[in-house]
């Protein structure tokens, strides 16, 4: 077991509101970690801190340590640009650039120094295929990304992230707008990817968490109530609240 990201005593504030309270968690390499919990409990906030996206929100404060491969990302041992290249994030709400589909996908690779047209074309095809979008858009690659359906936009954002080949993939409800089949394809992709990457996904679907993840963390009101191997957490939760939640008895 190799730990890719080690989070220790992470506390996070939006202004005065404590959105994360003393979270410690180990994200293993080559594993899928699922995060579950009711809406508003801090899942998105948590994964956004992992690649320091929250730096961009004014009035936030963060305490604790996050180590990526042993290096403290909070102390700028890895700089934010490199960090974000290595730790890819797909947002909960799809946010394609107001550019063409093609330009959306090659945006990252181009920035990171790939100029060769053939290589870029290849990346586009591969990434879109990975995100199960290629067939639907291959004829309108140069059309606007904003003219896509909700689910298509979501997959485009996944493709955009895959194109960067990050070491860690953070996915905030990546399949929420997808039909079962597309979801299945994305899940298959994760299975492949996890051979090389660490993957963290936020999901509202217990089934999904159960199906694909190796470890699961249960968040509640900014706390990490329980974290452990998925099969154990779902079958023998240690905490009463976890049990209530996964059995749907909660609230």
């Amino acid at each position, binding site marked *: 077991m190799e730990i890719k990201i080690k989070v220790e005593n992470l506390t996070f504030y939006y202004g005065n509101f404590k959105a994360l309270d003393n979270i410690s968690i180990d994200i293993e390499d080559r594993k899928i970690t699922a995060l579950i919990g009711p809406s508003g409990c801090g899942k998105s906030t948590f994964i956004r801190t992992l*690649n320091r*996206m929250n730096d*961009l929100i*004014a009035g936030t404060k963060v305490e604790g340590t996050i180590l990526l491969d042993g290096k403290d990302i909070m102390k700028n041992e890895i700089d934010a*640009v*490199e*960090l*974000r*290249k*290595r730790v*890819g*994030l797909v*947002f909960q*709400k799809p*946010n*394609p*650039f*107001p*550019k*063409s589909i093609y330009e959306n996908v090659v*945006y*990252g690779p181009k*920035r*990171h120094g790939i100029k060769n047209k053939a290589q870029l074309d290849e990346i586009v095809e591969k990434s879109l295929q990975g995100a199960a979008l290629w067939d639907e858009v291959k004829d309108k690659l140069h059309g*606007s*990304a*904003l*003219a896509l359906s909700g689910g298509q936009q979501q997959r485009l*954002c996944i493709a*955009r*992230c895959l194109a*960067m080949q990050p070491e860690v993939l953070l996915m905030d409800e990546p399949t929420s707008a997808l039909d079962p089949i597309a979801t299945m394809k994305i899940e298959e992709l994760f299975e492949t990817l996890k051979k090389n990457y660490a993957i963290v996904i936020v999901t509202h679907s217990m089934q999904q968490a159960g199906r694909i993840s190796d470890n699961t963390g249960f968040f509640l009101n900014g706390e990490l109530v329980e974290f452990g191997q998925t099969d154990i957490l779902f079958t023998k939760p240690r905490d009463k609240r976890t049990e209530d939640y996964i059995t749907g008895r909660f609230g």
Partner: protein
Amino acid sequence: MKNEQKRKDRGRIGEFTIETILRFFAGISILTTIAIVWTLFSETIIFFKEVSITEFFTGTKWTPTLEPRHFGILPLFVGTMMIAIGASIIALPFGLGSAIYLSEYAPKRVRKIIKPLLEILAGIPSIVYGFFALTFITPILQKFLPQTQVFNAASASIAVGIMIIPMVASLSEDAMMAIPDSIRQGAYALGSTKFEVATKVIVPAALSGIGSAFVLAVSRAIGETMIVAIAAGQSPVLTFNPLKSIQTMTGFMVNISLGDIQHGTIEYKTVFAVGAMLFVITFVMNIIAKMIVNRYREEY
């Protein structure tokens, strides 16, 4: 329920009234144009009865108030262009740079202070810029380029450029600010530097607004008179040397229309001919600008 119906009817009539009023408002700009065209062109036609069109467009001497009279508009045209281009060279990069800084780099507090500060530049009366150019910029130019004349196009266009910086900066900044933050975050999440976010995502997305800002600013530069009259002199000579004294179309128009020239004479009618000419030029430039902006606009 009856009330509901009444409210709805009133609403519908209200909507219709509003649209009618707004259409009328929009019509005012058309009326303005018609009035301008009528003001300028009716006299211009008379002017061209006395002055040959060929001379007007191809002549290289502009001396309507001197003997012998010449009515070649090229010197004024070139002067105007030199000022407009020079001012653009200053204002566009500096303005856009400031806009990017304010929108993407500056902390909120800094932005709130600096933006209105820069806008003060737009409110300083142009006489001040004129004398600033004459007594401050020109001596600096002369230090580096001793052949610089006391009155010269370069220092005037620099001053004009400074004056229109806020136009470029403020309007472009607004356009960039209006890009939703989620787009920005998407770019950062892909490991972009600020520079890349600004230039590859935000600027292209805000291009329509930036384009408009440029057009407005350049228009303002073309229309500026006082700075040029003071700092560039009033020498309608055909030169491409920015270190020499020139005259612009607008500068000429103000001088004549507020000078001691007798009204109704051919000298006086030149004002209208020049104005009409300028109108046509800006018209063509606007069409070109539209084409350029449309070409580069990423409107998805």
